């Protein structure tokens, strides 16, 4: 991970109101824009690819297409919980500068629900200084008593594409 300059002011939250799919990762609840979600599939045989970082689990066969699968737990440095029968792969499609709409699978612990968020539900990501890398967060949503962390998939996957080895 690149060293970040703490003095740089953060850009305000880019999360827009709308529908989000929420899922669980390491006990926390996360949300991604529903328009980027293509489908949700049961875990399938993942073929590991040599020389990949731990968060790139490998590739799967999605009805004849080959797509990479990311483990967001490893990506965010969360402990890997025991596999459970609620785990699934959320297939997302993100347009990046490098590719127009590549499919990627995200391994998650459990899918929760689709929620509608209004402007007032969304707050900008709080400052954590250098202790926490928040570049990949769009914002925080309050739904009743719970908090959902909204992920910036464009940026997460865009960074994966550009990653220098």
């Amino acid at each position, binding site marked *: 991970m690149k060293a970040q300059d703490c003095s740089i002011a953060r850009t305000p939250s880019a999360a827009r109101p709308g529908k989000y799919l929420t899922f669980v990762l390491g006990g926390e609840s996360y949300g991604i824009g529903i328009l980027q979600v293509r489908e949700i599939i049961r875990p399938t*045989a993942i*073929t*590991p*690819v*040599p*020389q*990949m*970082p731990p968060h*790139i689990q*490998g*590739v*799967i*066969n999605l*009805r*004849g*297409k*080959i*797509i*990479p699968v990311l483990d967001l737990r490893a990506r965010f440095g969360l402990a890997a919980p025991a596999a459970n029968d609620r785990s699934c792969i959320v297939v997302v499609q993100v347009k990046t500068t*490098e*590719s127009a709409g*590549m499919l*990627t699978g995200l391994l998650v612990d459990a899918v929760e629900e689709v929620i509608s968020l209004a402007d007032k539900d969304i707050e900008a990501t709080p400052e954590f200084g250098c202790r926490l890398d928040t570049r990949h967060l769009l914002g925080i949503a309050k739904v009743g008593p719970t908090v959902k962390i909204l992920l910036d998939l464009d940026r997460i*996957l865009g960074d*994966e*594409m550009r*990653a220098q*080895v």
Partner: protein
Amino acid sequence: MNSSPPDAQPPIVLNLASDGELLKEYVIESREHLNNIEQGALFLEEHPQDADTLHSVFRSFHTFKGGAGFLNLVPINQLAHGLESLLDLARQHKLTLDAERIDLILRGRDMLKQFIDQIDAQLTGAAPPAPILIPIGDFGREIQAAMTGESKASSASPAPEATAAAVPAAAATVKVETSKLDSLVDMVGELVIAQSLVTQDFIAEAAANPRLARNLAQMARVTRDLQRVSLSLRMVPIQGVFQKMTRVVRDLAARQDKEVQLLTEGDQTELDRNLVEELADPLLHMIRNAVDHGIESAAARAAQGKPRAGLIRLRARHQGGGIVVELQDDGQGLDKERILAKAVEQGLAAPGAKLSDEEIFHFIFAPGFSTAREVTDLSGRGVGLDVVRRNIERLRGRVEVSSAPGQGTLFKLVLPLTLAIIDGLIVTVGGQRYIIPTLLVRESFRPRREMISTLQGRGELVNLRGRLIPMLRLGEQFGVQPAAGSPAEGIIVVVQTGASLKGLLVDGLSHRQEVVIKNVGQMIRQRNASIAGAAILGDGRVGLIIDVNALGSLPAALGERTANN
């Protein structure tokens, strides 16, 4: 109808807004006609009386003219009209198409192509909208002169009724987007997997139930046929590329005052459409090289007791699940000593190294081999040949070269039939399966302990019948714990990379399978260059295809050159 060609030529002004769609169609159609005209004219050069070809070229000009008239492209209309009239006289046996007239037709065709290119450029936005003016010069008069050569002037302009009867014998074809074809191939691939899974599930029942067994067998047959057909949809004959070469040889030879004859064989050999397109460039390069530097001047040939006209043979054939394209000239051949001396000078070979002819000839494919050379009588040999090799390797093929002084050079391109499918050898390492393109596999064997030697810190070597080749442990390369504890328990797969060989140590060979190659995406590809792609195996799981050229950084010692240095 005004049959006299014009002197003052009005420019073409396109009305893109209103005629855009029509023009697009006209351009696509015209390109086919241009092709047909070129091929036809070249054929007529050899067989001036061939009625079918005369008709077909005539019809092409006629359709060209009709469309141009409709779209008000006056100069095209007039040009095509003149040439059509010439062809009409020929097909009525009122004149013969001699070399000069063929030349006229080809030049006319090139002018038409320029018009079409410019229209196309404006349509696609590559060029700003502007009046199109291509100097035709005295071409109209030349046609006129050519027509009056043997017949009674141009009064024999074609009667529209007569030509209307000549219905173009267009092949019944449909143009389909390649993305649709690709997804069809994807689906069929999945169907094959689903079918084999279903068959597996019912094996026990089928043994007791002949009806079920029959139906399952029928399903398997139909699925297989469906797969074969869906894959063959992308196949086209190599003919198109070969015909292009005919024209190139003709023009090059004329420019250099050499006499060169091109013979083609196997025009109907089918291969993937993409491959045909990708093959055109490297082939063009090699043909140019052969005419430029391979074939000697007529005088020099005569002095050596060879026929004055040089002969270039272009052959295509299927061989072992791939396609072989050979380019053979009967020119002066490669100078082995010179090439070796040059290679040593450039540090590509160790002085005094013992190399096979094949290895020596392979130096001509090294990047920059020819450019930094003072040896002049080899001049140009090798120009851009590194590009040829790179192109061919990108197509997952390889180039072989052999040559005999004074007798000529033979380039042999070995290519897969298609870019979409490879014949893969599936190997296992520590529970993982990897696919190696069979085209690159030379042999495989279980090594004995004494065949393997280690050079301290410089990797392992295996003794292959007296030849030492580098050995790579695939498990080590890929960070997989192999099941075979020592090389003697595994299998070595010998693969060809460029002119050299590598031995890959794997646990075992699984089977051979034709697999449809799929892209693994940039996320994977940029992190591991030795993964060329992936394919879906018989059980629906993904297998990774190994790019043997990119695999491992090898010890640069021992005269074995690798892709990396």
